[in-house]
């Protein structure tokens, strides 16, 4: 019989009392347990949402394999305990532990948080607190683990700046090892924690917030950023890979049902479409593609290693992948007819997309998804996503004709200068699509409209614009709800209070840390979950901190405003973003930048990497190698 450790004995009595105890057990196929005592440097990778969502996170999976491939390092995982488990851990004084070795997070050398969206900020604080780690970076000496974060939300790290020692900007595959190696150098040096922070700040892509001091003007906007010393880099530029080198092969296979049970493989990173609202499209530049051979070999190996029944081909715009036809044909040859499903998201609105889906033999039950985002030509010009109504209707007709009964249409309300007529057009368009369905397949046709609310994001052309206020959002949603009822129609929308929360946190400055901490203290948890409406808690936290939420959301920025994230450089120039903002005001469209380069700044920023990676895997122009002047 097995000997149970003290923690396991405690857990044995607690786990029967919580929902889905399998979240806290570990032991999944492909999870990696190394000899704790034999390893020098221990890293905990943390996804601050529940296991069910975190397990399939591709970023964590890549880093987990990367770190564990190093002989002198180990990486284990931790996720947010659900509310019931948090209570049990507190009641029994059990610190949050890693799933592999069941070690307290405090026993690790480095904690790496993934922050893909803002609504996880309070969860990150719960995790630190449950680990008996002080929340503020300046209260943690060298006895505590180094605490870092990365992920899409950290392109504006300021609201969380107080809580983290460093942010790793951009693509994490290489920077994480640089940080760990520097940590090891520091450890042998016997320097104080300040020494570690200075060392880290010299690594490309590492932002150490304690070395930067924002100064505010009386109106609350930024006056300038001061630097702790001369050596601190004025701007921190994100890291990118010249090639998409690392394909995870040994996906962790969960022993319980999670949201995504699948092999996920990026076919390309970045997007050339230039939709002006799109954060991912701006911060993930340049576009780099993976070869068809690599993708097929990667899937094959991952299938052998996992036994998963689903494959997801990830990208921001699958139709734009250069060899999409070849890829889909090859996938058909290799994987179709083997009781596998293959999903291909983000297809363009054209009949060709249906051909692709048919080749993948995707079950027609789930419906066919299209994302027009806006329903009038004016709005489409503003957001730079031009699709004619006729093109949409032709595509819809063909989708119904080829056997799909449900079309899912994704729209966004709240784009800059949107009027109630633009919103009414969304309802009209949904009805026109349904009418096509009725004509083709009769009353079995359905349209599901998913209408989210636009939040202006940093580092996008819309970073200057104001957000719709709650009342306006509600009016627009009421219109949609009145119009989109009846047989065949279904509407999903986002609670405006949740949108507001995302909007404050997205464009927040360092002062918001106090609001986040107060809201967390007063019980805000799992802000991304509809059933945990924390809105009132947040409002009183703003009150107590003496800050106005409207300052962050209901305010157009000055054209020369210094943003809280001014010193964070995603490689795209602010001047380019401003030009695109002006274009949107003039209703001017811009082409896919594969056709023509608009000099967004990526190539200047990463010209060395581009030179090292010539050819067509990048969708940016090549950089001419100049002879060095003698």
């Amino acid at each position: 019989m097995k000997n149970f450790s003290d923690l396991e004995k405690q857990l044995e009595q607690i786990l029967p009392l919580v929902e889905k105890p399998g979240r806290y057990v570990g032991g999944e196929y492909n999870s990696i347990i190394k000899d704790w005592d034999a390893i020098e440097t221990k890293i905990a990778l943390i996804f601050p949402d529940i296991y069910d969502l975190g397990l399939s996170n591709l970023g964590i999976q890549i880093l987990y394999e990367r770190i564990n491939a190093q002989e002198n390092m180990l990486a284990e995982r931790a996720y947010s305990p659900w509310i019931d488990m948090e209570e049990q851990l507190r009641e029994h004084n059990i610190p949050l532990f890693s799933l592999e070795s069941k070690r307290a997070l405090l026993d690790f050398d480095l904690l790496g948080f993934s922050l893909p969206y803002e609504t996880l900020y309070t969860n990150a604080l719960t995790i630190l607190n449950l680990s008996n780690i002080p929340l503020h970076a300046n209260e943690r000496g060298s006895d505590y683990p180094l605490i870092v974060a990365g992920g899409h939300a950290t392109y504006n790290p300021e609201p969380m700046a107080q809580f983290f020692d460093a942010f790793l900007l951009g693509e994490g595959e290489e920077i994480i090892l640089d940080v760990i190696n520097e940590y090891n150098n520091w450890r042998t040096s016997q320097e104080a924690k300040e020494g570690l922070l200075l060392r880290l700040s010299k690594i490309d892509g590492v932002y150490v917030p304690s070395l930067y001091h924002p100064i505010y003007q009386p109106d609350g906007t930024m006056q300038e950023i001061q630097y702790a010393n001369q050596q601190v880099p004025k701007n921190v530029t994100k890291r990118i890979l010249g090639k998409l080198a690392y394909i995870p092969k040994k996906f962790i296979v969960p022993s319980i049902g999670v949201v995504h049970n699948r092999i996920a493989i990026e076919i390309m990173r970045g997007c050339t479409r230039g939709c002006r609202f799109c954060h991912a499209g701006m911060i993930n530049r340049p576009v780099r593609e993976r070869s068809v051979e690599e993708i097929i070999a990667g899937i094959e190996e991952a299938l052998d290693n996992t036994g998963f029944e689903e494959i997801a081909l990830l990208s921001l715009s699958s139709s734009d992948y250069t060899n999409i036809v070849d890829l889909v044909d090859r996938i058909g040859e290799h994987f179709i007819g083997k009781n596998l499903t293959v999903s291909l998201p983000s297809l363009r609105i054209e009949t060709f997309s249906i051909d692709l889906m048919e080749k993948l033999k995707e079950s027609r039950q789930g419906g066919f998804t299209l994302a027009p985002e806006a329903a009038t030509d004016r709005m489409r010009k503003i957001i730079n996503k031009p699709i004619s109504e006729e093109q949409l209707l032709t595509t819809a007709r063909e989708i119904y004709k080829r056997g799909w009964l449900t079309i899912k249409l994704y729209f966004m309300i709240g784009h800059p200068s949107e009027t109630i007529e633009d919103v009414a057009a969304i309802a009209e368009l949904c009805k026109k699509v349904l009418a096509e369905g009725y004509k083709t397949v009769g009353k079995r046709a359905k349209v599901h409209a998913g209408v989210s609310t636009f939040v202006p994001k940093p580092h996008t052309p819309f970073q200057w614009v104001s957000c719709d206020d709650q009342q306006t959002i509600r009016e627009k949603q009421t219109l949609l709800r009145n119009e989109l009822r009846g047989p065949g129609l279904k509407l999903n929308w986002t609670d405006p209070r949740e949108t507001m929360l995302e909007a404050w946190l997205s464009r927040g400055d360092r002062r918001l840390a106090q609001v986040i901490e107060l809201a967390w203290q007063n019980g805000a948890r799992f802000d991304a979950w509809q059933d945990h409406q924390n809105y009132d808690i947040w409002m009183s936290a703003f009150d107590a901190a003496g800050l106005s939420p409207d300052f962050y959301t209901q305010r157009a920025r000055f054209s020369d405003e210094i943003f809280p994230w001014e010193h964070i450089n995603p490689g795209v120039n602010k001047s380019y973003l401003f030009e695109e903002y002006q274009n949107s005001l003039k209703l001017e469209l811009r082409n896919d930048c594969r056709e023509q380069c608009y000099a967004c700044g990526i190539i200047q920023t990463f010209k060395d990497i581009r030179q090292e990676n010539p050819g067509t895997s990048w969708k940016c122009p090549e950089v001419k190698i100049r002879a060095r002047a003698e």
Partner: protein
Amino acid sequence: MRFRYRLAYTKNELMRYTSNLDVHKSWERTFRRAKLPIAYSQGYHPQPKIQLACPLPLGFLSEDEILDFELNENLDIDEILNHLNGKMPPGFEIKTINETLEPQPSLQVQTIATQYRIEFLEEQSFEKLQIQSQQILDSTSILRERRGKKYDLRPLIEALSLLEEDHKPTLRMTLSARESATGRPEEVLDELGIPLNKTRITREKTVLNPAFNAGK
């Protein structure tokens, strides 16, 4: 042609909170990793031909779970074991694999009883448990209600004994596991006044009807 095999395995603490449905899924994936030619059902949603004998409640451990699977090829047991080597999730361990005779009723129909060992996580008086167990055995009927349905627990208890292992009391019971006559250890524990989360329950044996003497 299809070939049916019977596999006995253990389920340890790493799969303790994996539900029956997810156990099924875990085996599907294990067989797929092992590249065994599993047979699939016909129809619109082909399902792999895998069946489990008797659902194990969430939180129970097991030393004797049984599943049947069907292959499209007739492979030797050694060959199958070779395929599965290194592909097993750490929460399962294979005890035996045997080829079975066809045709046979489903495994669920063949299951007639299950035997459990109950260890106590908190101190329990041996004497008190002994008296209570004897009372249960001496009674002719124990009327209980479960999910709004009245039933008699007593005839479902085929054996009940108290032992001392490592100076601690351990309860062992055999409960009926026939269709619509399934005894549950937690119901017996409830009769004894012991909360479920203060126990460690291990299924020691799944008893199949010897009438279908399965082995080839």
